Each structure stands twice: as structure tokens, then as C-alpha cells.
């Protein structure tokens, strides 16, 4: 699976990390076939904000996800964009499972595109691991 992903990938723009140890901003772009995905990761001390751009710089829908009591199950809510559209909410939820941190995700990936959603999520998780914001092994099975 990893080699397929590597083959599909064509270019990676430079990763920029700015700011002091308080807030780190990372931006990168990945191209898959005919689709360009932009990623922006802002690491706050107790939360991570992520934006995923599909071919454009539109903000998209905003979701918030976190572990909630009593049993630490992950909850996700749509904060802006408010349709029953689930694009992005699944990514937000799985990011929380992966990192254990609160996630705020803005994403404009169109509906009915689960394959693209999964690829974007994989790239994001790989970058989060590279940046050291999360551990490589999952905390729990998804």
C-alpha cells in the first residue's frame, strides 16, 4: 500500500515552519494525478488546527473533534458549513484517535469522494508523524 502511495505522489512543495515554540505553522502541497491537495497544520499547545484545500484555497467546512467523557470515545461536530455532508468529519475523528489531541479541521474536499478523503487523511497523518505531533503506532484500532 505504501509503494502505491509513493508512486502516485508526484511532487511535494517545501514545508515551511514558522513561529516560535508557542505556535508552529506548517504548509505543504501534494499532487495526486489531477488533484492538488494543500495542507496547513497549525500546532497550538493543546490543539491542532488543520486545513485541507482541494484544488483551491477555499476554507470549506469546519469541524471540531475531541475525546469526550465518560469513556474517551471521540466526538465530532460540524461547526461551520452545517450540512449533513460528512466529508471531513471522518478525517477529524480519526485524527483525534491518532493524536489524542483536540482537532479543529477545515476541509473543502467535495462530497462522495471517499478515496480522496482517505488519501488526504493518510498524507496528513504521515506529516503529523514526521512533525512529531503524534506517535507512529495508533492508540487504538479504528
Amino acid at each position: 500500500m505504501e509503494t502505491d502511495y509513493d508512486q502516485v505522489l508526484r511532487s511535494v512543495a517545501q514545508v515551511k515552519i514558522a513561529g516560535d515554540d508557542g505556535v508552529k505553522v506548517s504548509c505543504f502541497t501534494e499532487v495526486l494525478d489531477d488533484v492538488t491537495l494543500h495542507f496547513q497544520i497549525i500546532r497550538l499547545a493543546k490543539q491542532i488546527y488543520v486545513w485541507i484545500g482541494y484544488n483551491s484555497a477555499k476554507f470549506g467546512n469546519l469541524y471540531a473533534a475531541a475525546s469526550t467523557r465518560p469513556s474517551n470515545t471521540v466526538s465530532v461536530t460540524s461547526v461551520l458549513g452545517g450540512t449533513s455532508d460528512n466529508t471531513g468529519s471522518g478525517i477529524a475523528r480519526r485524527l483525534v484517535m491518532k493524536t489524542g489531541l483536540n482537532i479543529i479541521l477545515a476541509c473543502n474536499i467535495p462530497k462522495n469522494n471517499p478515496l480522496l478523503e482517505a488519501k488526504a487523511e493518510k498524507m496528513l497523518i504521515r506529516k503529523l508523524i514526521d512533525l512529531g505531533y503524534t506517535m507512529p503506532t495508533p492508540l487504538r484500532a479504528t
Partner: protein
Amino acid sequence: MESSDANFPVRHRNFSLETKGNKTEIVICSYEDHILVIATQIGAMGTILHARKEEGMSVEPTFSVSVIFGKRDEPMLIATARRLIDHISSYVPSKPLVLSLGLKDHSSETLKEIVEAVIENRLW
């Protein structure tokens, strides 16, 4: 500090300021159809507000400002968003604002300093 990557479609600016002994981290991002401003003292986004200029027939502009996540009982936060969208809309009328305020201190002095710092470092 601004992102110098000319190829990335979203410009951002990231800086911090000291107000009343609290260090406030501010990030401003300019998307195609939104402006995002994050001001945090608590290491998290805190309360998130949405503000936009309404299309109207009257001469005076009207704005719609609401809290979409977090504290709904702090009028000063809404006033802050209102102040910023007023400024933004005089430059880019069609871009709404998503404002995140994760603050320990909601005093008007702090909020005023944050607004001034954001306007000074604006990306619109």
C-alpha cells in the same frame, strides 16, 4: 513572521504579543473566501466566532456576528469580531471572518490590543 512560500495558496502571518502579563499568540490566514484569525493565550482555539457583512440595500453596512463554538455569554468577544469584520469588509467586502479567541483574560484593554495588532499585521 510571514510565510514566504510563494507557491502556497494561503498566506499566513504568525506573531505574539504581551498583554497584561499574558503571552498572546496570533495567527492570521488569508484563504480565498475567508479570513481566519486565531488569538490564543491558552494553547487552544477557545471560542470560535463567525462574522460577515450582510448584503443590504441601505447605505450603512450591516454585519452578522455569531459565536459558532464556545462561550456564548461574552459580548466583548462578539464586539471584537464585529470590529474586525468592519475593518476587513472595507478592504475585501466579500470575505467573512472566522475568529478564534482562546483567552485567559477578556478585558477590553486586552481585546483592543489584539485588534490593533491584528489590523497592523493584516493580510487583507
